[in-house]
């Protein structure tokens, strides 16, 4: 983390070779990769990193327990339990992204956060779009089946009345 920024000639190939080249990026471009400690926390990495994982684990356990306990719970209004579980799940995904993958909103993370936002958009479109469309289709198909029943009934009536119709036709 303590590489000299003045010596950052990124095109010279020998910069790849030394050991500290692994961390050179945190000061050269300032970019940040998910899953590693942000450079601004590098002063006391061990303590801050361990604290991050422990907070993440504790919050995850709490949210998981909330999800499982909400099934038979009377603390939550019955029909809204499904939505509560969805909210607990989304919150836990956020906890994992922040405390396990160390994703932040800093400018160093812009590229990672933008990619994540796009992925989230696609996931929402696929999951909620599918549920929405298929639910509507089921609704309409069932309505059509009912309409077909009505039509079948009217066809029977027509068949039953056909002698009379033919009579009227003949005369």
């Amino acid at each position, binding site marked *: 983390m303590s590489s000299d*920024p*003045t010596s950052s000639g*990124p*095109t010279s190939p020998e910069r790849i070779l030394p050991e500290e*080249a*692994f*961390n050179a*990026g*945190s*000061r*050269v*471009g*300032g*970019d*940040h*990769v*998910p*899953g*590693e400690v942000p*450079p*601004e926390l590098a002063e006391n*990495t*061990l303590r801050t*990193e*361990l604290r*991050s*994982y422990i907070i*993440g*684990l504790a919050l995850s*356990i709490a949210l*998981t327990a909330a*999800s*499982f306990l909400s*099934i038979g719970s009377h603390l939550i209004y019955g029909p809204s*339990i*499904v939505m509560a*579980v*969805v909210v607990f*799940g989304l919150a836990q*995904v956020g906890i*994992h*992204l922040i405390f*396990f*993958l160390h994703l932040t909103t800093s*400018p*160093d993370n*812009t*590229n*990672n956060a933008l*990619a*994540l936002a796009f*992925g989230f958009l*696609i*996931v929402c479109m*696929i*999951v909620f*779009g*599918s*549920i929405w469309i*298929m639910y509507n289709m089921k609704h309409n198909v069932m309505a059509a089946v009912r309409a077909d029943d009505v039509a079948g009934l009217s066809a029977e009536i027509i068949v039953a009345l056909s002698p009379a119709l033919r009579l009227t036709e003949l005369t």
Partner: protein
Amino acid sequence: VSVPTTALRAGRDPYHLGHDVPAGIVPEYTGHGGGGPAPKRIVVGYGFWLFILSDVVMFSSFFATYAVLIDARAGGPGPHDLFDLNTTAIETAFLLLSSFTCGLASMAVGQRSLFWTEIALLVTGLLGVAFLAIEFSEFARLIARDAGPTRSAFLSAFFTLVGCHGAHVSVGLLWLGTMMAQFWAKGYRQNIRHRFLCFTLFWHALDIIWIGIFSGVYIIGVIIA
């Protein structure tokens, strides 16, 4: 021009929003290629992050399939008859703890401690194996009571989604063993640490997918169906 260059360094405010950049000083624009090509660590990590997101998109289509087909049971058993939420809770605990110990392993790698790296990775792997063992025994139990993937569209969707996650965990375990061996044999070389960074991303992402499975497939499945 005597401006402290530290003020222009990336990290806090690389775009210098609302500040004039003094003449003669080239700021290091994050992500704009201003400092030349990004280091390999950034390229590798970002590329793998994009792979993980595309993997999540693939899983989302399986989630959508499950949600749409949850009532398509062809007279067969439904989530309420099949799922045992106590088993799911134990699986969740194992996978969550393995994600935590995977984080501890990356701390040990940061400290260059081979002993703690191997220990943390071993615990992570054992928790993963325990998770898989429970999942396979659950699959075997379902198939034994004639609720296999061929029974109904609902069960096909269930086995595809959860089985695909299990396959990912299996591959992750192979990768984990490889990382243990490579740290042991080759040490903390740059390319090995790049691989390990990708592995931690992969393993944490599997736990994120599992959050969707235990809430969406098991808990909500039992509630609504």
